[in-house]
């Protein structure tokens, strides 16, 4: 399996996860989207040294993972893109910010170490929550939610169309890559001089296909926008979910829960 094919598989995997059944899957996509945004804003609003404050935010994704039955492993696989970058930026903090901030026995933690850990936790938490949103919501449902937020129809339609084509394109590119490698055994990739023709040929074919597809769509009555047949209605459970979650985030943010919990033990 080559890299392009793996990308296509990853897309299919997300589709399959989103098609499962669970209490979280059955919520209205709009409620999930709003809750996720509230969560992200809350996590990012923690100050850069507030390590223990951020840790409390772990509870939400963990609870969601358990309720939705989505495997955590899949999510951590996706960390490979985001985490190196966050770590790279954070790794400089211990060297530049050396003021001691916390002493645990013989161990002294500097402000830089704490801000680095906070940054990494923020990165992981935000990623987990955004992943959970997509793993429990199909792209069609999400687009319907975006339309409900009065987002202009054209970008949303474009998003849906592109998402459908990405699968086809990736398969096509994967097949071309395989064909090329079969003709050039033992080579690691495609020579740079062939790149223009490789992508270019696929591009020309695709653009022709695009206009054919459009004719097809028009014949079936497409007038510039899709109709979302299976739009989930907003129910009282969605209101409860959104209100409870946002209230909890506010409590987590405004009250130092970890501190309070800790002071029960450490006196």
């Amino acid at each position, binding site marked *: 399996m*080559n890299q392009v094919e793996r*990308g296509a598989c990853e897309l299919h995997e997300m589709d399959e996860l989103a098609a499962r059944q669970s209490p979280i899957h059955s919520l209205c996509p709009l409620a999930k989207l709003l809750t*996720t945004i509230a969560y*992200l804003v809350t996590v990012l609003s923690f100050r850069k040294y*507030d390590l*223990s*404050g951020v840790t*409390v935010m*772990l*509870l939400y994704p963990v609870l969601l*993972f358990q309720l939705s039955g989505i495997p955590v492993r899949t999510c951590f696989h996706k960390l490979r893109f985001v*985490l190196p*970058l966050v770590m790279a930026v*954070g790794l*400089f903090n211990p060297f*530049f910010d*050396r*003021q001691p*901030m*916390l*002493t645990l026995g013989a161990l002294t933690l500097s*402000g830089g170490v704490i801000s680095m850990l906070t*940054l*990494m936790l*923020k990165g992981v938490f935000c*990623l987990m929550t*955004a992943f959970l*949103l997509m793993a429990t919501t199909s*792209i069609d449902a999400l687009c319907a939610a975006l339309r409900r937020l009065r987002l202009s129809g*054209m970008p949303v339609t474009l998003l849906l*169309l*592109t998402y459908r*084509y*990405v699968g086809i394109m*990736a398969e096509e590119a994967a097949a071309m*890559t395989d064909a090329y490698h079969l*003709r*050039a055994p033992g*080579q*690691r990739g*495609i*020579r*740079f001089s*062939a*790149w*223009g*023709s490789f992508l270019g*040929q*696929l*591009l020309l*074919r695709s*653009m022709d296909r*695009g*206009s054919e*597809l*459009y004719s097809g769509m028009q014949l079936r009555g497409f007038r*510039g926008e899709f109709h979302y047949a299976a739009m989930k209605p907003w129910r009282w459970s969605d209101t409860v979910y959104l209100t409870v979650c946002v209230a909890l985030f506010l409590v987590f943010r405004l009250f130092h829960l*970890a*501190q309070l*919990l800790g002071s029960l033990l450490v006196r």
Partner: protein
Amino acid sequence: MHMADALLAPAVAATMYVCSGTAAGISAHKLRKEENPQKLPTMAVTAALVFAGQMINYTIPGTGSSGHLCGGMLLSALLGPQAGFLSMIVILTIQCLFFADGGLLALGANVWNMAFYGCFVGYYLIWRPILRSGLFACAEEKTGQRARVILASILGSVVSLQLGAFSVVLETGLSGITELPFGAFVLLMQPIHLAIGLIEGLITAAVLVFVYESRPELLQDVDASDSGVSAKRSLRATLVILAVVAAVVGGGLSLAASSNPDGLEWALFGNTEAGYSENMGLDEETFGLSSSASETAGAIQEVTSVLPDYAFPDSESPAGTTVSGLVGSAMVAGVALLICAAGGFFRKRRANSAQEQ
């Protein structure tokens, strides 16, 4: 160059959303006024193609780094700046939602850094002026046009990537995320993105020259009537030639399998020996133990180290992270583990009861 959520403060993320959203709104409005609905599927297909092309990393010879096709310049040359910008937004959205490449809140910033510069700056300030200029006029018409396409692609990619990389530094700096001094961060980011921009420019140029030679009417600002009619090939002829070229070329370097880190990662990670020790030396004076903040912290440390094994319930460290805070965090982790255990237990019981039935 995809930024994660953690690298941005909410205020910066929101500002970037507003900027990118405004640009997107204006673009959508302009496209709607053009009333060319046929463009929509073409945009989608082209975006999907660029997406597939982006999954491929290009090794930059000699540095051990790798970059990928950003696509902004390619899309605006093929579709025009507005349609290209919207297509880039869609690509970045799919990457963010399904591949976790870039954060959901950071999407506004990512769109600005990677799509806005490539599509608008790259198109209006570089692509269009160069393509309409009399550069290389002394050469044969077709050769001159080809040279203009190559020049515009490379220059456009380099400039838009430089601007994008600078924006990453600016946004991270404004968010107060990194302690890395602004100057050092810029010095780390710009050169590596210069190399990436050059590579991207070369790939973009290769694709656009191919398109120009086969179907010049597809390119923006290229007058097909006087340049490519004689050279224009039918799709079938193109396919045949390409099949032959693909069979003959057979070999090479860079398609996939490039496990080297992305440029931003390299700028910060891979450079440890070269830039980073110097920066540390430079910064010890500014960030060293002589500042007033560190004196306060030092005083706190003095107090705490008297009784190192005990925590002080009322000692508020300036940062808000205290020992009891950390103990509390450990308890939170414990609760999280309990939730996991409970989830596992209930799932197993449900599976068992389903089996019994």
